[in-house]
């Protein structure tokens, strides 16, 4: 099984193909579309500059329709039939976990670009997004400081939400705060009346929200209707699904989100990227955080290939593990060889009652959690995901 067409060195048909499996329909289309577009932008830039190692890059990009089943089939197809040299795939953590066994079996170089709960320590997987440690680690202490120690957690009911919930508990513990209640809400749920009543019943200082997907957006609208004016901290809003633009103000008033990139970020590299993006996709509704991650990681891969002088995946991985530095739109960032994660510039984005954004407190945060658990892929090639619950006794 693991013998069939693994070596994607691009020699067999003369073309170099990379796989970009991003959702353009279904529950995650709203965030997936922009990820796909930014990948195409990066590939076009590479090809215009003469390709990688002189080869034009082709892309295999069917729509997985937010369906994990389909993701699996397409991942097999990408690896075995298309012989992709690198794979970008998936928005949700559930998707990532669904295809990771295949990726592992086939020893496929794989980039996962979504912000996520953290903890993946995997020899062929490179996690480009900010982790919960990086995002919540920035925004939760800030909120405790600003508003007080009483927290209420609402999160999407799957691995991402559950583990993010553990992180909120963990961070509360570290900062002498208290989690009053937690609700894990099934993906697709649209009615938040009782959730809002429960929050009101507990009367927290702020709400930590890790809601995900189209349906969950309804929460913010309903929060505004009922006049629930508790401030919110989040790792998932605005930077991905641009709720601040889709919803009428003041639905997102006092929403604080820990981000490494948003299109509103007013740095020069960020704005240059935004301009290039909208030049290629003038009708795109938004350029989100994940899209930036796709964009810089495609370029980073190309640099690694150039440096290695080959498309051979093992050698490219070795090159990536030598420690790369990239000039990303969010700023210059580094790849941590031991954990295959990025050190990110984390900001706290804040929406006011008119949904105007401001960014506070830029911090440069490393992926420390995996260091703490002892993940070192350069010496020990694992294929695991660690959770804080397993590792810290206090939560």
């Amino acid at each position, binding site marked *: *099984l693991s013998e069939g067409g693994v070596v994607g060195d691009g020699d067999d048909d003369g073309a170099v193909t990379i796989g970009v499996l991003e959702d353009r329909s279904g529950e995650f289309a709203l965030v997936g579309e922009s990820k796909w577009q930014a990948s195409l932008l990066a590939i076009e830039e590479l090809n215009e500059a003469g390709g990688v190692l002189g080869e034009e890059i082709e892309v295999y990009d069917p729509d997985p329709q937010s369906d994990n*089943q389909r993701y*699996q089939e397409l991942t097999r197809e990408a690896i075995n*039939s298309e012989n992709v040299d690198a794979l970008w795939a998936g928005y949700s953590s559930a998707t990532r976990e669904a295809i990771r066994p295949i990726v592992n079996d086939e020893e496929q170089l794989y980039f996962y670009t979504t912000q996520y709960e953290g903890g993946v320590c995997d020899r062929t997987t490179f996690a480009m997004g900010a982790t919960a440690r990086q995002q919540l680690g920035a925004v939760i202490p800030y909120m405790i400081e600003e508003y007080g120690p009483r927290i209420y957690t609402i999160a999407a009911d799957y691995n991402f939400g559950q583990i993010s919930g553990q992180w909120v508990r963990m961070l509360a513990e570290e900062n002498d705060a208290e989690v009053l209640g937690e609700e894990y809400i*099934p993906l697709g749920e649209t009615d938040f009346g009782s959730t809002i009543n429960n929050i009101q019943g507990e009367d927290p200082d702020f709400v930590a929200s890790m809601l995900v997907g189209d349906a969950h957006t309804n929460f913010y609208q309903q929060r505004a209707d009922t006049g629930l004016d508790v401030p919110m901290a989040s790792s998932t809003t605005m930077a991905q699904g641009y709720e601040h633009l889709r919803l009428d103000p003041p639905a997102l008033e006092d929403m604080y989100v820990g981000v490494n990139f948003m299109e509103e970020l007013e740095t020069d590299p960020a704005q240059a990227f935004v301009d290039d993006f909208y030049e290629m996709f003038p009708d795109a509704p938004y350029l989100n955080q994940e899209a930036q991650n796709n964009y810089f990681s495609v370029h980073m891969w190309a640099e690694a290939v150039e440096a290695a002088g080959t498309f051979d995946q093992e050698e490219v991985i070795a090159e990536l593990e030598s420690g790369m530095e990239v000039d990303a739109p969010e700023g210059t960032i580094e790849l941590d060889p031991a954990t295959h994660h990025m050190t990110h510039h984390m900001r706290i984005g804040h929406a006011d009652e008119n949904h105007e954004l401001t960014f506070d407190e830029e911090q440069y945060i490393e992926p420390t959690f995996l260091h703490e658990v002892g993940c070192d892929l350069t010496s020990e090639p694992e294929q695991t995901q660690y959770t804080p619950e397993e590792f810290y006794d206090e939560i």
Partner: protein
Amino acid sequence: MSEKPSLEARLRGPFEGPNTIGNSRRFWLSFVLGTALLAVYPVLFGAYAAESTSVYLVYGLLGVSLAFIWGFCGILSFGQVAFFGVAGYAFGIVSINLASYTGATLGVLTGVAVATLLAALLGYFMFYGGVRDVYVTIITLVVALVLHTFMGQTAGSQWAIGEAALGGFNGMVGVPDLAIGFGTAGLEFAGAMHYYVTLLVLVATVLGLRALVNSQFGYAMVATREDEARTEMFGYNTTFIKFATFTIGGALAGLSGVLFVTWGNYIDPSEFAITAAAMPVIWASIGGRESFVGTIAAAVVIQRIQIGLTGEWALVVVGSLLVIVILAMPDGIAPRVGDAVDYLRNRGGGEPAEPPTATEEVSD
């Protein structure tokens, strides 16, 4: 059909009769040819092609489980995926916990048993409770949706059975391959082997069901489908007939679920969702619910098209096809294939028309 029991007639005998489409020599020739083509397919196209085709045959089996109960007993279950999914999860739970040949073998048995039991329970609840017609359809759908909702919220770490985490929306990952054996001795069926096992199961199921449907029980099923009240008045326990048929259908759906989960080593709650639940109904409608081969062909082709067609118009094309096929061919394609063959023959002035035959196997 012929008077003197030739070897061929004796071979064919148990598998044909007025209740099945396709009783001609032509049908059997295409059936054997189709099966042979499918058997050499991996040799021609390689292990990976076989491996990726395997899942379509699994869907074919799921479709057959519905065609059997719907086409021959008139019970439209919208919840075949419930048995399919439950068996998949059950296999996962057992085989993850007992990571050995014994575990996988037990997993297969448990998976099918759990699906059978669920179908039996549900069937008992419905048929002995006087639920009928479209209400059966909707109850089965609701059961699938309950499972969808339930499995969707099993993300928390409390939802682990031994080593096996149910995983909620994430699904259950790391399910072992299909294997039969005891302890450390046994056979593992991965890749092309999975394909052959599935093909074998599928052909055996089709033949077995054809025999069943043309047996006395089959006549009772058909009579129940045609007019339940009347059939009861001939002394048939129609309630039991429906119950038994439904349970067999559930067991087959369970078997396909086990094959499914061992193919992808993964299963998630979306298998219970309304879109997944609709698919077997669509395969059987399009392929012809009274034709096993037609249903299999429809499952293979439709699923292949869905994966193969990319681009934003794909779903528009698939949806329009469904509408057009049903409007143009209310009984599905299979009966029409026979008609078309006969028509061509008659026009060619050949031999007299035989009874309609089913479509050829579609070999992807």
